[in-house]
């Protein structure tokens, strides 16, 4: 099994993100950013897992991640995204969105751009702004899209102080996460179990499409898009359920997979091996879902601690017209034939695993037990 390395960092970690590698690079990632929450002082920090020239003199062993630099952040870090190699965008519980710049020459972080009241509640009795937590960010150079508890969607350009576009009252409930579908289109998830697709080319404040979980209106907390097949979207809900959606058809998820016992905080497709999916949850678990279908008789090769998923509903209908080879393994899952193999990655149950990120063979996650876990051999 992969070796996973834990480090206690004296702050509750809300987000962990790998720094993207330069295009075409064959390196393994060696820097990641974290954000903390619920501390009296919160920080955005950068960590290195590389050796970085210092000869581990103070007893640190190989693989232990070292702090490179950090900077105070006003409010909880609600979301964190790398904008490019040097810039990190952070969402705050105060409603502020900040772009931090990493100076590699002297290892410091500084504020590069800031939108102070990106998200706020309007006071019915006057023009007093009350900050509303910004809950999600997605970046696509040069654009930054943010969503918040105020149900607002903002579109920023990194070098513009003004908001490029704002959709007020985009949602009557809290928006929990956002991601790009195709460039001018984004998808948001909210606290009443809806997935909304927005097209910035359209005027007006109405979504282009609404998809929803039927019945219980279970809040959705996270969303990720399949890296190659832009119509395949995965979401995680308050009941720990993983839903796979095909946004081209239907208004309901293609499959619902019973997963964690509590809120699923993040879901990520592996960026280069999209048959692998990773989820983490409030129940303190971190799971690796493997839907690669090249392994015959997979059931005999179960990892220890692995389990088979249960399919609750299967509403895919008209697949006949879609060529078999282009169907993502996430959509074609037939409960009788293929099984998704699930492996738990953390050695012991801990407090909530709030965030995870994967890049190449590396995975990083952060917990409320104030530990950061890193593994560099995901597929060994």
């Amino acid at each position: 099994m992969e070796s996973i390395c834990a480090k206690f960092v004296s702050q509750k970690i809300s987000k962990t993100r790998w720094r993207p590698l330069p295009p075409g690079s064959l390196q393994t990632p060696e820097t990641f950013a974290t954000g903390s929450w619920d501390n009296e002082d919160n920080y955005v920090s950068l960590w290195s897992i590389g050796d970085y020239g210092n000869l581990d003199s103070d007893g640190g062993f190989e693989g232990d991640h070292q702090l490179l630099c950090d900077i105070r952040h006003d409010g909880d870090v609600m979301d964190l995204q790398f904008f490019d190699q040097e810039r990190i965008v952070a969402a705050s519980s105060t409603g502020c969105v900040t772009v931090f710049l990493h100076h590699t020459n002297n290892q410091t972080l500084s504020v590069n751009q800031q939108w102070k009241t990106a998200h706020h509640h309007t006071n019915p009795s006057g023009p007093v702004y009350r900050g509303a937590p910004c809950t999600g960010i997605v970046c696509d150079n040069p654009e930054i899209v943010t969503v918040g508890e105020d149900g607002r969607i903002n579109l920023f350009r990194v070098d513009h102080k003004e908001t490029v576009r704002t959709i007020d009252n985009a949602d009557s409930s809290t928006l929990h996460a956002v991601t790009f579908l195709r460039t001018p289109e984004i998808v948001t998830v909210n606290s009443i179990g809806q997935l909304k697709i927005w097209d910035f080319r359209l005027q007006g404040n109405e979504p282009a499409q609404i998809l929803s979980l039927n019945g219980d209106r279970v809040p959705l907390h996270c969303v990720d898009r399949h890296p190659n097949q832009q119509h395949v979207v995965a979401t995680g809900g308050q009941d720990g359920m993983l839903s796979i959606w095909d946004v081209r058809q239907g208004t309901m998820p293609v499959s619902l997979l019973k997963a964690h016992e509590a809120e699923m905080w993040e879901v990520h497709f592996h960026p280069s091996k999209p048959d692998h999916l990773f989820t983490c949850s409030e129940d303190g678990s971190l799971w690796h879902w493997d839907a690669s279908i090249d392994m015959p008789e997979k059931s005999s090769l179960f990892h220890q601690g692995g389990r088979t998923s249960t399919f609750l509903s299967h509403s895919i209908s008209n697949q006949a017209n879609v060529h078999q080879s282009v169907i993502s393994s996430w959509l074609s899952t037939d409960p009788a034939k293929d099984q998704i193999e699930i492996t738990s990655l953390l050695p012991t149950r801990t407090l909530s695993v709030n965030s995870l990120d994967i890049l190449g063979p590396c995975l990083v996650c952060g917990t409320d037990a104030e530990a950061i876990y890193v593994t560099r051999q995901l597929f060994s």
Partner: protein
Amino acid sequence: MEELDGEPAVTLIPGVNPKKQICFDWGPGEMLVCETAFNKKEKSEMVPGCPFIHIIQKDVDVYSKILRKLFNESHGIFIGLQRIEEELTGKSRKAQLVRVSKNYRSVMRACMEEMHQVAIAAKDQASGRQFSTQVSILSAVELIWNLCEILFIEVAPAGPLLLHLLDWVRLHVCEVDSLLADVLGSGNPSKHESFWNLVTILVLQGRLDEARQMLSREADANPASADMCRILGDLMRTMPILSPGNTQTLTELELKWQHWREECERHLQDNTFAASPALESLCKIMLGDEAALLEQKELLNNWYHFLVTRLLYSHPTVKPIDLHFFAQSSLDMFLGGESSPEPLDNILMAAFEFDIHQVIKECSIALSNWWFVAHLTDLLDHCRLLQSHNLYFGSNMREFLLLEYASGLFAHHSLWQLGVDYFDHCPELGRVSLELHLERIPLNTEQKALKVLRICEQRQMTEQVRSICKILAMKAVRNNRLGSALSWSIRAKDAAFATLVSDRFLRDYCERGCFSDLDLIDNLGPAMMLSDRLTFLGKYREFHRLYGEKRFSEASSLLLSLMTSQIAPRSFWMTLLTDALPLLEQKQVIFSAEQTYELMRCLEDLTSRRLECEEPNAQKLQDDDIETTKVEMLRLALARNLARAIIREGSLEGS
């Protein structure tokens, strides 16, 4: 009340004049203090005092960054310990408990290590000293824990007991290793100024193999004493000791040991080492000569080292039950009446006396936070050593200490999540304490609220779930986020609040003529049944949708049923009837004759009631004007519709 165990410590609050009256209020982990002028009659003394309210924290260690790691890591170990199967008995259980104890200690040592590094790297002296103090506290705590592990958890019998104690001393008196490296690193070890000190320490700690190697170096460097060194070295080599794998009985060991001891004595009487005072002193030490041992006070450092060395060379098969006797005499001899025992000495002495309660009590008094006593007590409780002891307050001691510790965690801005699990494992008062604490967590984001809600829901704390959802719903209303507010009241199953929010929606509709938050209202589903008003809101919106989709007959029966079933609030009937107007005016007949009668009855019902409770005023009169026109129009439309309906129904039946 029991009597006080010691003088309470005095805390000076900077900025507060101790001559003035101060008042205070207790909080869970802290205290509020401010100046007051209670009951002072002469007003002339009303000098403006200190304008601040001070927050006094009881447990400052919680705020140390490094100790936070200790709290977090030990939380994991604690949870693991609670899961140890109760069925496990005998050896496997004991082995598990010892492993848990060692895990706790290794976390403490890791913290100590880091604190030590920080103390060295500290830029200013004051903070360096502060860290050094914490290192010494941690090291004392670990020392106590280790001794408790040997005596209470490991429960080593005579023989192995001494080996454990030797390890204990070696672990905590570790300056010798750096000295060893220093001496060996020098060009000529035997000429090093600390050479004999080093050899003596090695002998005092029972590290005879290493001592022998040192002696052989001395023999090489100094041929005159080579013989003596060889003889003493042989004595060291032949000293019988109990090794873990050895099967020999204690009696055999004692017999061999007596023989060896006689040989040592003979050498001493023969003045074999007369030429070298250092070697002679070593030989005396190996005979357990107390005077010779006490000469090495400096090297022994403390009385418990003295105790263990003394036992090693005079009572190697000491029984646990006799320990306290040797401990007491060692302490007395070592201090020699010059100084009085310190808290640490008392704690260790209590442990040697196997008085667990005394150990815990002394530790509680001496240490500034509950981490140590709570975890140690819990572990000892799992060893089933504390069951008989009940306090005259609360429940048992384990639970009392865990509650204290967990409350301390809850007082902290971010460590509260750890506290939850500690409360969970307090069977008697844990749940109520947790309930009280959870209600008081400040909720600045929904995400945090969700985490608290999850904790409540997992424990079926319905009352707390309701109250948290209500707080969030209230916040949302204040922020003008009606959709959010409705979601939260649905989650709380709070019918009254759902009614309130629904009314706000309806009012907004009346003002603006359109609905907001359709994404929510259109998808209420079964949640609509929560309150009548919410049902009405959902149904009324459904009417509008049907109307928009031109499904007029469905729309009209829905509209009518809203009034006849009394779901619609009477204040809203006029709006509903007005909504019926365009339906009445459609080309085809939508309301049947019977339905029209119903509508008319509703209208008359409404107007007659209005007349009953009339109170004329200017505004009202103007409103009434509009109202009267509306009623007139409605009556006209109803009458026309009725006529058309009767004709249509009559002709349909006729055909």
